[in-house]
C-alpha cells in the first residue's frame, strides 16, 4: 500500500510551483522525491503567482509594441511619468490645471450624485413595478425601449435642460444608473419566496413590519446587484461624458492630455480609471457578501 503510494508520488510530474519558486523549490523537490510528503503550494500563492505572471506578460507585450510601434511610450517612460504625477496628485493651478487626484475626485463626485439620484428614484420604482403587475406592464415597454440607448445620447437633452456642463454629466449618469436599479429591484421583489409572504400573513404582520422585516431584507441582495451594475456602467460612462463636457474630471483630463500629445499621461489615466473601477466593484462585492443569507 505505502509502496504504491510512494511510487505514485515520485512519478507525478513536478508541481508548477516548483518551477517558479527556484532555489526554495529545490528543497521542496528533494522532499518530494523522498516521498515523505506531497508538497503543494497553497491555493492563494498560486493565484498570486498567476496574477503576477499575467501582469508581467502584459507589460512585456506592451514593451515590444512600444519598441516597434511608433509613438506608444514604453512602460519605463510611463512609470517615470506616473511617479511624477502621483508625487503631487492634489495640486491646483486654476480650473484647467489640477492634479490627477482632484480629477478622479470630481469624476467620482458626479458619479456619486447621479447615482444617488438614480437610487432615490429607481429603488422605489422597482418596488412598485415588482409588487404590482399593472405597473410592471406599464413600465415594461418604456424600459425595453430606453435601456439599450447609449446614455451619451441623453447628453444634449441634459445640456438643453440644465444649460450647464456639470449637471448635464450628472444627468447622463442618472439615466444610465436608473435602469439596472429599477430592473434588479423589481426582480428582487418578484423573487421573494411565497413562504416568507405566508409567514407575514399567518403572523398578521403590519404593512410596515412586512416591509422592514421581509420585503426589504429579501430584496436587498438584488438591490446591491443593481447598485453594482449601475456603478460599473456609470464609471464607464463618466469618462466619455466628461470628454464631451470638459471641466475638471478624469475623462476631461484624458482629452486634455491628448490635445497636449502626452500619450504617457493617457496611459496613466487608463490605469487609474481601471483601478478606481476595480475598487468600486470590489467594495460593492464585499457589501453584497455582507447582506447575502443562506437559508
Amino acid at each position, binding site marked *: 500500500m505505502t509502496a504504491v503510494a510512494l511510487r505514485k508520488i515520485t512519478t507525478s510530474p513536478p508541481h508548477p510551483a516548483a518551477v517558479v519558486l527556484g532555489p526554495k523549490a529545490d528543497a521542496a523537490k528533494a522532499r518530494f522525491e523522498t516521498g515523505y510528503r506531497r508538497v503543494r503550494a497553497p491555493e492563494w500563492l498560486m493565484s498570486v503567482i498567476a496574477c503576477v505572471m499575467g501582469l508581467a506578460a502584459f507589460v512585456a507585450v506592451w514593451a515590444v509594441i512600444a519598441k516597434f510601434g511608433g509613438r506608444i511610450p514604453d512602460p519605463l517612460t510611463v512609470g517615470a511619468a506616473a511617479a511624477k504625477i502621483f508625487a503631487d496628485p492634489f495640486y491646483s493651478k486654476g480650473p484647467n490645471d489640477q492634479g490627477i487626484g482632484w480629477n478622479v475626485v470630481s469624476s467620482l463626485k458626479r458619479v456619486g450624485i447621479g447615482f444617488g439620484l438614480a437610487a432615490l428614484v429607481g429603488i422605489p420604482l422597482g418596488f412598485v413595478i415588482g409588487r404590482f403587475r399593472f405597473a410592471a406592464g406599464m413600465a415594461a415597454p418604456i424600459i425595453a425601449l430606453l435601456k439599450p440607448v447609449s446614455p451619451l445620447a441623453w447628453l444634449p437633452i441634459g445640456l438643453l435642460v440644465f444649460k450647464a456642463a456639470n449637471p448635464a454629466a450628472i444627468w447622463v449618469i442618472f439615466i444610465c444608473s436608473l435602469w439596472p436599479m429599477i430592473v434588479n429591484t423589481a426582480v428582487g421583489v418578484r423573487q421573494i419566496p411565497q*413562504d416568507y409572504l405566508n409567514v407575514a400573513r399567518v403572523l398578521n404582520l403590519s404593512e410596515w413590519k412586512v416591509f422592514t422585516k421581509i420585503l426589504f431584507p429579501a430584496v436587498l441582495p438584488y438591490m446591491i446587484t443593481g447598485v453594482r451594475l449601475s456603478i460599473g456602467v456609470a464609471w464607464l460612462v463618466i469618462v466619455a461624458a466628461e470628454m464631451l463636457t470638459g471641466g475638471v474630471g478624469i475623462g476631461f483630463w484624458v482629452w486634455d492630455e491628448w490635445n497636449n500629445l502626452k500619450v504617457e499621461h493617457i496611459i496613466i489615466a487608463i490605469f487609474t480609471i481601471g483601478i478606481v473601477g476595480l475598487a468600486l466593484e470590489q467594495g460593492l462585492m464585499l457589501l453584497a457578501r455582507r447582506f447575502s*443569507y443562506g437559508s
Partner: protein
Amino acid sequence: MDLEKFLRVEGVGMAFETKAGSFEALTGIDLTIERGEFVSLIGHSGCGKSTLLNLVAGLLRPSAGVLLLAEREIGGPGPDRGVVFQNHSLLPWLTCFENVHLAVERVFKEKLKEKTHAALELVGLSHAEHKYPHEISGGMKQRVGIARALAMEPKMLLLDEPFGALDALTRATLQDELMRIVERTGSTVLMVTHDVDEAVLLSDRVVMMTNGPAARIGDVLEVALPRPRNRLALAHDARFMELRAKVLEFLYEKQANKTRLKAA
C-alpha cells in the same frame, strides 16, 4: 363555549381556477375538533390535505361551506392559529430569537423578551437563540418554527408536514418532543402528514382522505391509546399495530391509485 366543537368545518369545498378550468380539490368536508385534541390528516399526495389545513389557517377562503373556530368564522389568517410549515420558513436575516420575537410582539404588549425566551426554552433551544437559521440544523430550524407558532399562545396549532423534510432519527426525536410539548401546553393540534406511524403515534384521531380531485374524508380512526405514549413500548403493542394496519389498508387498498404510486 361548546367544548365539543372547538373547530367546526361544515360542508367545505374548495375549487381552484386554473387555465384548464375549475379544479375541484375538496368537496363536502365535515370535521369537528375538540379543544385539546390532536388530529392528523393523512392521504396520498395531491389529496388536498394541505389545502384543508390552509383553509383552517385562513390562507385560503373556501368556495363552499364555512369554517368556525371557537364559534367565530375564519375569515383570514390570524395569531389565534399558529402555523408550522414544512420548510421551516424562518427569515434568514433574523436570529432564532428575532424570528420568534416577530411573532410574540404581534400578539402581546409586554414581557416580550420573557415570552420569546420561554418559547425557545420549551423547544430546548435556549443555547441557540442568537444563531442565524443557516447556522443550525434542519431539526433545530423546525423547532424554532414550532417555538414561533407556540409563542403566540394560539388557540390552535396547525402543522403542515412539519417533519417531512427531516431524516428519520431527527423526525423521531422531534415527534417525541412535540408530544411532550402538546402534553404540557394542552394545545389543540391539526397536523398534515403522510407518515402512518407519525399519525398513529401522535394523534387522538386520524382523518383519512380519499384521493383527489374532489377529495373527501374517507374514514376517521380513533386512536384510543393511553398517554403519555412511548414509541418503543408501542412498537410491539398489538393495538398500535392494528391501528397502523387500518391506516395502511385505507391508503394502499381502498385508496390505492396505481398511477399515483408509480409517479411517487
